[in-house]
């Protein structure tokens, strides 16, 4: 306790409530209000309507919704596989090469997303790997941008895993693959779920690389929101933003309900 007088504390809490309200709650509340607004000319919105949601869930916007969820799921699954694989593989290496490879798996998160997209365009616009204009290039772009987060999360989980469990399993004669599947992976399951959740959320909101590489017919929700607001359909853009937040939250809540029987630590 830093401030002892109750009036001083009250003042500080009021200040915090004001700042958090202004900076974090107001923006979300405003987008929510705008998504129901038929018109907004004064201080408050008017003519409440659900029509923005109707159009956000059908037609082009509906297709964007589908594209976003499929891209997010595919990229996150791929990133989780590669991230887990690299975290497991790096465990057995000597310190110096491990440090270097660790850096190599983290660097994609440090490069601007637009440059990641540009690189994919330059690299895969010609044979032998002609991916420009396909759905695959969008999934690859998302994969690159989230791979470091899955790798980091799984590595953190492995670092906290006591080696005893695996050694006991080994001494009892468990083969490496059996050990991996029945001991190691279940023990770090919470970290795997957390990694997938964060990946999916980041992929749902990805914009910079997607605008560089998306083919016609596979634009994602963020790209859709941008084109809507860019041509002045701000309320429909707001409705799509709310849909984006809700879908992300639903997936995160469903993932958090997966039972993790063996809790490490």
């Amino acid at each position, binding site marked *: 306790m830093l401030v002892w007088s109750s009036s001083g504390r009250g003042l500080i809490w009021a200040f915090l409530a004001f700042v958090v309200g202004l900076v974090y709650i107001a923006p979300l509340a405003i987008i929510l209000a705008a998504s129901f607004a038929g018109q907004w000319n004064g201080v408050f919105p008017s003519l409440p309507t659900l029509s923005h949601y109707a159009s956000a869930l059908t037609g082009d916007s509906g297709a964007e919704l589908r594209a976003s969820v499929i891209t997010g799921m595919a990229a996150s699954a791929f990133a989780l596989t590669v991230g887990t694989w690299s975290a497991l593989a790096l465990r057995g290496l000597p310190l110096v090469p491990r440090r270097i490879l660790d850096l190599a798996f983290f660097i994609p998160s440090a*490069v601007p997303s637009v440059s990641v997209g540009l690189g994919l365009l330059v690299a895969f616009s010609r044979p032998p790997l002609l991916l420009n204009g396909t759905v695959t290039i969008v999934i690859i772009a998302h994969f690159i941008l989230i791979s470091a987060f899955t790798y980091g999360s799984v590595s953190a989980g492995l670092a906290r895993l006591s080696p005893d469990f695996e050694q006991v399993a080994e001494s009892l004669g468990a083969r490496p693959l059996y050990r991996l599947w029945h001991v190691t992976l279940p023990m770090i399951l919470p970290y795997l779920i957390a990694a997938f959740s964060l990946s999916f959320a980041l992929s749902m909101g990805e914009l910079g690389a997607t605008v560089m590489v998306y083919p016609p017919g596979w634009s994602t929700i963020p790209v859709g929101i941008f084109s809507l607001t860019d041509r002045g359909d701000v309320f429909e853009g707001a409705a799509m933003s709310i849909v984006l937040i809700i879908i992300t939250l639903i997936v995160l809540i469903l993932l958090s309900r997966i039972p993790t029987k063996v809790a490490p630590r």
Partner: protein
Amino acid sequence: MADAALALRRPAPRVDWFWVVPPLTVIGLLFFYPLALIARQAFTGGKTGFTFDHFASVLRSRQFHSALWNTIEIALASSGGCLVLGFVVALIIAFVPFRGSRDAARFIDTFIALPTFLMALSFTFIYGSAGVLNGLLMDITGSNAPPVDFVYSIWGVILAEVTVFTPFVLRPLLAAFSLIDTAQIEVASSLGAGPWRIVRQIIFPAALPALLAGGSLCLLLTVNEFGIILFIGAKGVITLPLLVYDKAIQEGDYTPACAIAVINVLLSLSLYSLYRLVLAHFGGRNAGMV
């Protein structure tokens, strides 16, 4: 794979280089190879000869200068703002706690998972020319011109980025604060030290690693930020990532886009090195990053 062969010939300890190969191939093919091709295109222009001409013409252009300057200005101002806001909020949550203060921290933390452009979108609703604040002010003052118009300037971008990236400072700060022994503060307080002095002499030194780590992470994220600037769409506010997008997609001119991207990536990688150096120097735990 000469290394792998050597490693396998040694009997003990057995090192499994083999399992590193598949993920490294994936990252190499999908990330490092495209990155190398950006550099090649920047130096060759898609032809065979190696030349610095493309860089020279980018470096001479006024557009590039203003984008570089905007990027640096926005990054420094936003990171500074994140540090101040993050420090104040963390201080209150950790040392003047109230019921639900942890929930408040968790709520702010969820913004890490939300797309950054949402903040820019909501700013146009709140502070835009037809937004709530201007509507309110015009009702009060009776004027017809919107009095507040900072959103479509560099200030709108900075304010949005401060909001979006403060959680990246708040999280390590709260972790670092939880390591401070509260008895230390209570003793200092009972010996007559005022709150300012406690903050200055006990809390701030303990928070310094987390501030440096969070600040350098913010610098990296703000230099790389794209969505907020695209959404706010201010005419004069072009940054390096936006310039890369404009050149490549709007103008279809890949070579200058690649040259700018090389400079942008180098800037980002040096900031990332700074971040890793801070972590290595203080240790991840002290910097609140583990």
